[in-house]
């Protein structure tokens, strides 16, 4: 056994280096994307890049604070942190500040704080604590529901604040449940639901139902099995019908107009190419511009601070949600691929480290961290490149914003702290 590692404080330097690389590269892209007017100083706090530098310094303080606390603290106080976080989300309904249509911010003078960002690590901690509890058996429906409520509570609160993007991130915690042993058919159900949903929107509910019926009939009559469960087949069929029409209803009645448009455009529901072009220009204006910026970067990009579309502010919200388009334009395929690879490596590294843990709490939390990072990575970069419908959430470590940077720093470094203690006997 490695003595030094067992007795001392051992950070996983690979993760730390990737984290540092992403934050620094992110900072330079924010500098490029938000550099307007006269350049006074790197600490010019009227500009996003100046503020981001301060946020980065702040996150250094946070890191030293997190690492200096005893690892056990996080498990013990997980419930407290969770409750505090939920209270801060509820508090938004009373004194929240609305920005871009979402009531997700507390405002202190000039500074704003977004509690939903912090709710992510708090939920991950609470979930880890609950599932790792000796009395919990996640294979039981009762415990699944309780754990589900832990996740659903912040998700619903955030949805009510009109921040659908962040809500989706909580969905990624499904990976945690799955890893910890919920039955396989949950996954099957999830995959079916996605296929069903897309098919319904693309080809209409009736067509989808018809196809399901045909498949089930085929299955019933042509596959020989030991026991023919006609009732089961019928039940599946009825459920599917409900789900299909449910999806259609939700699309038409629950989703807001802009969400419908985004999904509609993604699925290419409009057939007329001219109208499609017009939709691209109008509805997904941001996406269109961001794709153009990325495309114009070519293989090696136009160079740092030399992106013409970045300079000309052609991509709205470029220093926040669309920061990846700056990478694409100025650093080209080469730079963008490195960023993608860094994210993939970081997430995989965290998953790997989590799997190494004997402590269930650390493993579950690690999985939670990886899932949350993955959700952001998938949704943000996928959106900026037009692979998934437009959903506004930040790219971890890259997008401008103090709450986001700090929340992701806490998320990752609590895990690294737990990891550094992995071999200590608790």
């Amino acid at each position, binding site marked *: 056994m490695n003595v030094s590692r067992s007795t001392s404080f051992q950070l996983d330097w690979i993760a730390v280096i990737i984290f540092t690389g992403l934050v620094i590269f992110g900072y330079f892209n924010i500098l490029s994307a938000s550099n307007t007017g006269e350049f006074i100083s790197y600490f010019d706090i009227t500009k996003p890049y100046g503020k981001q530098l301060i946020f980065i310094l702040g996150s250094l303080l946070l890191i030293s604070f997190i690492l200096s606390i005893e690892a056990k603290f996080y498990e013990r106080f997980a419930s407290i942190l969770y409750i505090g976080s939920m209270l801060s989300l509820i508090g938004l309904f009373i004194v929240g500040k609305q920005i871009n249509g979402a009531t997700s911010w507390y405002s202190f003078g000039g500074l704003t704080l977004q509690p939903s960002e912090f709710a992510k690590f708090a939920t991950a901690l609470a979930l880890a604590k609950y599932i790792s509890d000796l009395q919990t058996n996640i294979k039981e429906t009762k415990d699944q529901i309780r754990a589900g409520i832990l996740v659903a509570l912040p998700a619903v609160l955030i949805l009510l604040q009109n921040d659908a993007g962040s809500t989706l991130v909580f969905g990624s915690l499904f*990976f945690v449940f799955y*890893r910890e042993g919920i039955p396989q058919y949950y996954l099957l159900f999830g995959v079916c639901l996605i296929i069903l949903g897309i098919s319904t929107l693309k080809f209409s509910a009736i067509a989808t139902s018809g196809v399901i019926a045909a498949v089930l009939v085929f299955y019933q009559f042509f596959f020989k099995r030991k026991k023919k469960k006609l009732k089961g087949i019928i039940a599946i069929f009825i459920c599917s019908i409900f789900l299909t029409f449910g999806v259609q209803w939700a699309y038409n009645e629950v989703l807001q107009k802009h969400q419908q448009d985004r999904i509609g455009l993604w699925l290419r529901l409009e057939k007329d190419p001219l109208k499609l072009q017009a939709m691209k220009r109008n509805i997904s204006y941001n996406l269109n511009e961001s794709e153009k910026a990325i*495309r114009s970067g070519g*293989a090696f990009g136009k160079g740092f601070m030399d992106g013409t579309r970045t300079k000309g502010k052609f991509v709205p919200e470029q220093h926040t949600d669309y920061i990846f388009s700056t990478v694409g334009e100025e650093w080209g395929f080469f730079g963008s691929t490195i960023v*993608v690879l860094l994210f993939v490596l970081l997430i995989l590294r965290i998953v790997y480290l989590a799997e190494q843990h004997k402590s269930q709490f650390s493993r579950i939390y690690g999985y939670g961290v990886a899932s949350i990072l993955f959700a952001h990575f998938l949704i943000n970069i996928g959106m900026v490149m037009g*692979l998934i419908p437009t959903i506004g959430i930040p790219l971890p470590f890259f997008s401008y914003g103090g709450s986001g940077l700090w929340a992701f720093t806490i998320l990752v470094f609590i895990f690294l702290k737990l990891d550094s203690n992995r071999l200590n006997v608790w």
Partner: protein
Amino acid sequence: MRKVLLFGIVILTGACFIGRLFYLQIYESSAYDLNNDNAIRKVFHYPKRGYIYDRNDSLLVANQPSYDVMVIPREVETIDTIMFCDLLKIEKHDFLKYYNRAKRYSPRLPSVLLPHLSKEDYAFLSEKLRKFKGFYIQKRSVRDYQTSIGANVLGYIAEANSKDIKKDAYYRLGDLIGKQGVEVSYEKTLRGVKGVKYIQKDIYNRDIGAYKEGAFDTLPIPGKDLNITIDSELQAYGELLMQNKIGGIVAIEPSSGEILSLVSAPSYNPNLLVGRQRSKNYTKLYLDSIHRPLIDKGLVRMHEPGSPFKVLVALTALEEKVISTNTSLFCSGQYVYGKNKRTMQCHCGGGYRNLDSAISYSCNSYFAMAFRNNIEKYDNSSKSMDKWSDHIKSFGLGSFLGNDLSVGKKGNIPDGNYYDKWYPEFQWGATTIISNSIGQGEILVTPIQLANMTAAIANKGFYFTPHIIKSIENEQIDSNFNSPKQTTIDPKYYEPIIEGMHNVYNKGTASFLKVPGIEICGKTGTAENFTKVDGVRQQLTDHSIFIAFAPKENPKIAIAVLVENGRYGARWAGRVASLMIEKYIKGEVSLKRMEKLVVEKSLEDEYLKPYSGKPFKINDQ
């Protein structure tokens, strides 16, 4: 499975993203092109177009400002079209026509919507233009002609058309390019190179500074001034003499090949092709199918040379030693040849003709004999003809001359092969093609070729390629123009010919055209010509042709004049030539009566004859 699901999905996602990046940035994107980035505005700075001076440094062509309304169709937003049209003083359908043309060219690149705004319109419009997104004003420089002469020589500039743009990517729609005359032949010298500034735009189409601190910007390189060989006073005088006539004058300085004047009649004022009325005026000039003012007659009107060609026939015969200076012939008023006793009429008056008097009285019989001797020198007429043809071509006939003029015609000097093809089953001989001996038949020349031939005779055996360029600012002119081109005729044979040409003035067909104090050598010419009226070949009044050089010793000017349908050579072309020679050598004209006669003479009725629809007579019969 439970352990690898997230692992797998993360890797899959990463692969998808890199695939998408590859698609967007490598597969779909062409190499980044600064010129094609709509975040970058290209602003061109047009250099000063070079000025044009004449040989005596008097300014002929300068520049003046002009204001063009530009449009970038993609940036145009809904506008009040009626108001905009009122501002521009155009009709709505015209506006739409121009706008759509610009859009077809490129929705993204700027095009000229309306060129050449007057200063007043510009002042009025520039205040209001802010309201119309996508439109702006570009100041440009257009030509300012300081003279009303020499339109055919100076040429004009106009907006480059799509053909020009295709040929040379330097030009964009709306750029000006030389279209005729010196403006074409020295386009690259005159225009310079436009400068370009790359300006970073923002999403609101505002300029936010130079792209990369102007690292790619270029400064305009101004066009070079040039002097042309034209003597503008002589040119103006030539145009005056040729008024109400169709034809051309080409005057060359034999000792250098410089073109002293290049008159094409009728001419037009070059200022007509500047400004907003340009296209109206152009159309008018273009559609004048009788006078064809846009055609440079001195360069492209091919015609039979007539009698001046006899001089070459004589030189060739001397060189080939088929006649000598003493060879003489009795002219009976006609030349009888061939088995069937065919005849060629002669108007020399008859009697004994030697070389000298044959030239001065333009005796057809004598040159028919000389030509026949020449072609019958060898057994094979084709071979003889080839040799003859080579001699003639050494005077620059039958070729483009390699000059620096934008247009020209080769003319035609037949050789043996030419007739072999024409008469494949028939052994042709000298008598078959005897008309060539008097400059008719298959011979075709342009006035500038005639003038060059005259210069070669004046120089006794060599010529310099005629050229229009005298000097270019800080640049050498084509060295080809400084090297003499030898003819194949021995210099000693020129003496008797020049003497004969001198006698044309002293006692011959041009004796009434003498200019006191100047020894002129010349040769008259008359060329039959035909047209088709309603599909029927009809003969028209002969062309009046004249060549001359002066003074006899150390010639300063060699000239060829063509007056279409002017009847015989001495009648109009000869007079014009004499007056031009006097004007050039003395600086003023003493033959006032002759001058008045020429200036006042109009041949308009002659030109209208074929269009009258009635039968007409020719040659004053």
